[in-house]
C-alpha cells in the first residue's frame, strides 16, 4: 500500500548512484523485494514507470526479484526456508517446518533492496 513512497525512494537511490558513476544512460535496474513486505511488485513497477518519466531512468528495464521468506526457530534452532503452502500464505511465519513450534523470528523476506544498475558511461 505504500508503493508510491517506496518507488520514490528507489528512484532517488538509483539516480544518485547513476550520477556518481557518470551514467549517461541507465539500461537496467534490479530490485529485490521480500515476499513478506507489504509491497505489490506490479503496482511498484507501474509507479516506477510514472516517476521515471523525463529522468535518466526513463525506459530502463526494471527487474524485480523476489526474496523468499526465511525463519529462525527459537525452539529447535532451525534456520532457513519455511513452510510454503499457498492455501495458507502465513503458515510460513507461524509454524517451524522442523518442530512445529511457533517461536519464530523472521530473518529474511522483509527487504526492499536496490541491488544494482546497468549503465552506459563514457570510456
Amino acid at each position, binding site marked *: 500500500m505504500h508503493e508510491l513512497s517506496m518507488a520514490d*525512494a528507489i528512484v532517488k537511490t538509483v539516480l544518485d548512484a547513476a550520477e556518481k558513476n557518470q*551514467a549517461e544512460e541507465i539500461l537496467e535496474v534490479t530490485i529485490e523485494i521480500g515476499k513478506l513486505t507489504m509491497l505489490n511488485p506490479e503496482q511498484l513497477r507501474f509507479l516506477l514507470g510514472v516517476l521515471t518519466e523525463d529522468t535518466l531512468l526513463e525506459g530502463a528495464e526494471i527487474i524485480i526479484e523476489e526474496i523468499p521468506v526465511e525463519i529462525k526457530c527459537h525452539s529447535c534452532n532451525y534456520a532457513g526456508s519455511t513452510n510454503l503452502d499457498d492455501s495458507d500464505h502465513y503458515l510460513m511465519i507461524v509454524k517451524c517446518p522442523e518442530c512445529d513450534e*511457533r517461536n519464530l523470528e*523472521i530473518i529474511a523476506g522483509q527487504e526492499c*533492496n*536496490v541491488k544494482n544498475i546497468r549503465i552506459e558511461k*563514457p570510456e
Partner: protein
Amino acid sequence: MHKIAEVEIQHDIMLANKKLAQRNQRMLDKAGVFTVDVLGAIGSGKTSLIEILIQKMDHKIGVIAGDVISKFDAGRFQKYNIPVIGLNTGKECHLDAHLVEHAFEDLPLEEIDLLFIENVGNLICPVDFELGSHMRMVVVSVTEGDDTVEKHPLIFKDADLVVINKIDIAEAVGADEEKMASDARKLNPDVEVIKSSLKTGEGVKEIIKAIGDFMD
C-alpha cells in the same frame, strides 16, 4: 566511446528506515522517554485509549498524533495540556522513522517520560516501518470482524500488547472475541492480550499494568 558498466548499489530502503528507527530509540533512551507505538485500524479506539491513559497513568505523557490529517486527533489530546505533536502524513498510509525523527525536534522530550505515537489507522503498511519505539501496542475492535487478527498476521506477530476493544458490543456485531485472542496468541505465543471496553472501562487497569510492566 561508451561502455556498459554494472554498478552494485545494495541499498535496502527497509534497512535504511530500520537504522533511523534505531537512532530514534537511542535518542529516546538518552532522554529517558519510554515510547509506545499505538497501531490499529481506523476506528479501533486508538485515540480514545490514549486519552484514557493520559488521564489515568501517573506519568509525564506526550503524544505524537500521526494521521493523514492529524489536527483532529491532536486536538483531542491537546485538551489535557500535555505536549502534542500532530504529524500529517498527507497521502501516506503509515508513519516512518524519518517523520518521527522530525517530530522530536518540536517535542520537549525533557518534559516527558512516556510517549505515545499514534500511527495512521491501518493494519498493513505500518508493519514495514519501525519507528524506534520500545513497545508496539495493537488495538483491534470486535466491530472489525473476528477474522481480522488472522487476516493481518504480521502486525500481530510483531506486537508486544494486543488490545481487543469494544467487547461490550461483540454479541451485537456477531464477533467472537475469544477467537480473536486465540488467533493473536497463535501468531505470537508471548504476546499479552487484553480484552477491553473503553466505554465501560473494562480492561483499562490491565492495559495500564501491562504498559507499566513493560517499562520496568
